């Protein structure tokens, strides 16, 4: 199984993205328990909140890069009927999207961020639609992706985007309560909201873990489907 240098590098990058996606999430998941714990003072919870937001950039970054890297691997291994030239706009677009995701993290002015956060969400929904169509169409017609397992990986990636969307939707009351806590200070009422709303987005996070691990496993296994 000797691979050419560049192809091996791509496959390796693909695996490395998996590493930082799932591995980064571990810290976010554990540390967020401190952020949500009313036994800790507000300052502690804010600091932990900052750290979780920083660590969370690992899975956020890898999700965006997984798209061009995954397609590059598929093109390089002739598993998708797609001209390699299409990779150029895909990479440029993905890097621009990545820049947006990072800007949304670094910029503190929420009013300035809001329209762009909406655009980011729109882009995710568009990708969700495009990738779902691509996956289902390929499974049905074996074009442009001939291998069933790879079409399934595309669908799993779409499912991850969907879960990310659901984290945002179900996490909104939680996020708003956090914002209020930062402004007004903690109160039993806000803590009750935080406790009640923290579990739903967590469930979607766990779904993503399952999907990401499954996608990695299918990618290694390459079953005939």
């Amino acid at each position, binding site marked *: 199984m000797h691979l050419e240098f560049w192809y091996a590098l791509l496959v390796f990058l693909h695996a490395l993205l998996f590493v930082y996606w*799932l591995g980064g999430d571990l810290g976010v998941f554990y*540390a967020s328990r401190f952020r949500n714990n009313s036994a800790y*003072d507000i300052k*502690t919870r804010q600091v932990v909140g900052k*750290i979780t937001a920083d660590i969370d950039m690992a899975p956020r970054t890898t999700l965006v890069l997984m798209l061009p890297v995954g397609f590059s691997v598929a093109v390089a291994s002739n598993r998708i009927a797609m001209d390699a030239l299409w990779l150029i706009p895909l990479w440029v677009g993905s890097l621009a999207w990545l820049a947006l995701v990072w800007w949304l993290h670094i910029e503190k002015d929420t009013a300035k961020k809001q329209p762009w956060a909406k655009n980011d969400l729109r882009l995710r929904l568009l990708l969700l639609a495009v990738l779902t169509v691509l996956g289902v169409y390929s499974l049905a017609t074996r074009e442009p992706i001939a291998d069933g397992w790879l079409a399934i990986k595309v669908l799993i990636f779409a499912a991850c985007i969907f879960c990310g969307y659901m984290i945002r939707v179900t996490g909104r009351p939680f996020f708003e309560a956090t914002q209020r806590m930062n402004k007004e200070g903690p109160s039993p009422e806000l803590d009750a909201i935080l406790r009640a709303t923290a579990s739903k987005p967590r469930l979607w996070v766990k779904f993503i873990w399952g999907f990401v691990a499954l996608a*990695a*496993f299918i990618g290694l296994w390459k079953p005939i489907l």
Partner: protein
Amino acid sequence: MDWQVFWIFIHVALLVYWLGADISVFLTSLRVKNANYSKETRMALVKVLNFVNWFPSGANMFMLPVGLMLADGLGHSPVTGWWLVLVWVAAFAWLRLIWVAGNKRGTPEGKRLSTIDLYLRYALIALLVVVGVMSLATGEPFTAAWLAVKLLLFAYVLCMGLGIRFSFANFGPTFGRIMAQGSTPELEKEITRLTYAVKPWVLLLWGGLVVMGYIGIAQPQF
């Protein structure tokens, strides 16, 4: 399904919880040194640090047995059959050792177990270097050169781990003193110094893991 696929997946998953989890350890440790944070805040951060750090430690223990399973599957390894069982038993025993040592940190028993762990690491590093160099030179006992290089790199990674351990050894006691007696400029200076001293070792360790990951995928001819 080929069992080899299963073990490759576990091998990569170990990298996930080693290299991937280390990001959290790294980013959290950069904040612990902030003297402006309250004791409570810093204590919470150390708790996060201690918990997440178990994952790289555990992954470190199982990387070798899982790697040897894969090498056996490829027919490149002399470690087969019952020898593999022995390696697995040893890995679990070792994990148990560092777990108990970690929980009894600061006691004489904890110190004794930690010393045993240290000597086991020295022995493993020596063994890996001898076997790696022999395999590179003669094609035996490991029959693939890239695998021999990975064994040598694993020895390198273990050395970087020791670098982290020695350069960061004073962190626990110093942090404990801040918690017990309150912050002083000297103690904070020491905490900051330790946080910077450990950094190069961490980055060098990550570099080793990244190169190992690449070699495992590319399996180049040397």
